[in-house]
């Protein structure tokens, strides 16, 4: 093969529609336009199957298949010889193509007409360049490999999960130049993702939740596959999708709905990357932009590697925190108490916690905070360990699969955002402290 498919992937984005030629049993050629070609690997591509048309009839009858692809960056053209293998109607590849097609359909005025029926997998048997005019490609906005190298160096300096998550969003923003992003963690027990960090939104949305399977982020999590859309599409405007999904599934009570999801209401480009380590989904990185086609195959590659690196580091820090030996934690001198009293109300039904009647958090993080504050008000306790929380019957952690350390970071951030005189801080591996600076009144409802 004279040209490697991974070096011409911009031709697959559908910016310049590809052409497909087949021929029928009588030897009559047929030309059709392709809305989508998906890179599978260097020997395989997938074409969207949307209609049963002459092309499909010819392909199923065994016609040889030829594609003409054009680079929107250089105007170079390539002819590919393909052989049809099979059709997939579910799974990661299908979902990736379905999402991308939704954006393409919206962009080309074909919403409701372009509908993915299947992902047709073809073996690529040859790629030849077509002679013709060309231009120099514009320089890329970011050198993805260098951004990855610099990010790797920065992540490797972190000594705990809190630092790692903070550095990760710093790297996405500063090294990869991404202006709107979220980092979400997977709650395995409840089948949802919760926002732990975000950048580029008026409200951080920390603590907001999305069910696995809903919207672009939820589908990325369910399929454990990166998903990328290049044009604005209402179908994957995740805020609405999530609300619809919740109402349909009767999950509105179970999910965190008091904290609104951050997000651009009119994002054109969206990309979600799963964070997976040791075959477990740990979370999702979500990026968006107001510009069309902001993320390409190269950005996706770099961020998939970044997510893999982040996943391994997350797992390492979580395991290290869990492995810390229990020893009597040193109590630190309590902070001076001043200011007006703060009322903390706990609702046992869903472990929701309100500070002066304003909602803070619910679920496991709510249960943790309530236990900490009770220990503080009854015994003056300010130092705690992850191991202690694990065996605390008041908290009812779902098991070691639950990322306790990430929940503590979530709680820490929600408290810091509210800044009402309660804070938790990491003191060392597997240990943290509670700081209270206002008189507290605890009310159990």
């Amino acid at each position, binding site marked *: 093969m004279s040209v490697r498919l991974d070096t011409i992937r911009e031709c697959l984005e559908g*910016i*310049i*529609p590809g*052409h497909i*030629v*087949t*021929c029928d049993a009588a*030897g*009559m*050629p*047929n*030309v*059709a*336009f392709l809305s989508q070609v998906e890179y599978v690997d260097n020997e395989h591509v997938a074409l969207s199957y*949307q*209609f049963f*048309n*002459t092309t499909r009839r010819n392909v199923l009858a065994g*016609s*040889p*298949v*030829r594609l*003409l692809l*054009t680079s*929107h*960056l*250089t*105007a170079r*053209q390539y*002819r590919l*010889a393909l052989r049809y293998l099979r059709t997939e109607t579910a799974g990661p590849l299908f979902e990736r193509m379905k999402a991308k097609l939704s954006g393409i359909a919206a962009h*080309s*005025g*074909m919403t409701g*007409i*372009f509908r993915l029926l299947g992902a047709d997998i073809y073996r690529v048997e040859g790629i030849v360049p*077509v*002679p*013709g*005019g*060309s*231009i120099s490609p514009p320089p890329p906005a970011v050198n993805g490999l260098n951004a990855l190298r610099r990010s790797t160096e920065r992540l490797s300096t972190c000594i705990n999960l809190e630092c790692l998550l903070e550095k990760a969003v710093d790297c996405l923003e500063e090294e990869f130049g991404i202006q709107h992003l979220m980092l979400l963690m997977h709650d395995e027990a409840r089948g949802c993702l919760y926002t732990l960090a975000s950048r580029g939104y008026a409200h951080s949305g920390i603590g907001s939740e999305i069910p696995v399977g809903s919207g672009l982020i939820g589908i990325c999590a369910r399929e454990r596959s990166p998903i990328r859309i290049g044009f604005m599409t209402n179908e994957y405007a995740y805020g609405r999708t999530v609300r619809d999904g919740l109402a349909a599934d009767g999950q509105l009570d179970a999910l965190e709905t008091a904290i609104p999801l951050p997000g651009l209401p009119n994002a054109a480009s969206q990309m979600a990357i799963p964070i997976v380590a040791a075959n477990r989904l740990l979370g999702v990185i979500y990026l968006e932009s107001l510009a*069309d086609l902001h993320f390409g195959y190269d950005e996706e590659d770099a961020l998939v590697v970044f997510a893999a690196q982040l996943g391994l580091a997350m797992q390492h820090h979580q395991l290290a925190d869990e492995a810390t030996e229990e020893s009597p934690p040193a109590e630190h001198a309590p902070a001076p108490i001043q200011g007006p009293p703060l009322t903390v109300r706990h609702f046992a039904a869903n472990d929701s916690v309100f500070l002066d009647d304003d909602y803070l958090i619910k679920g496991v993080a709510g249960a943790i905070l309530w236990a900490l504050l009770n220990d503080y008000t009854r015994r003056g306790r300010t130092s705690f360990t992850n191991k202690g929380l694990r065996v605390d019957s008041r908290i009812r952690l779902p098991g070691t699969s639950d990322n306790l350390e990430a929940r503590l970071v979530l709680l820490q951030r929600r408290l810091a955002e509210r800044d009402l005189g309660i804070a938790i801080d990491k003191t060392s591996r597997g240990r943290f402290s509670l700081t209270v600076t206002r008189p507290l009144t605890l009310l159990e409802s």
Partner: protein
Amino acid sequence: MLDHDIVTFIQSGVSITLAGCAPGHMPSMSRGFACKPLENGERIGIVLPRTQAAEALENIRLTGRVAVAFSQPTTNRTLQLKGTDACIVAFDPRDEPLIRKHVDDFVPEAVALGTPEEMVRALLSYRAEDLVMVSFTPSTGFDQTPGPKAGHPLTAAQ
């Protein structure tokens, strides 16, 4: 054979793709640079560069079978004409204004969808001595605009 609307459409700022296939050969295609009605509209001629279209031209030389798709980027209106009597004829330099007009009409269509003009002009750049024309009588035609009518025969071409 072709009604006025179709004849106008295939000479407007549409993308043109010509394909041929032959037994024992891979099907192949090439971009067309202009379309010219011939013989009072009984036949049409597609101008294209010989170096880009070498494979398709060889298939047409062997079988005379040809398919040409015309698609307007901004509307997705697409139709395909097919013939069985295609032949390859020399390019008449007096037809060069047809190519310049086609490129000038196609540029705003592509630019409207975000493709830079420089890129479109590079894609449709040519050397006049490299050009050739494929001439054929459209015997069948199909509406290929995505939607409910996709695949329907063109009534005017029947």
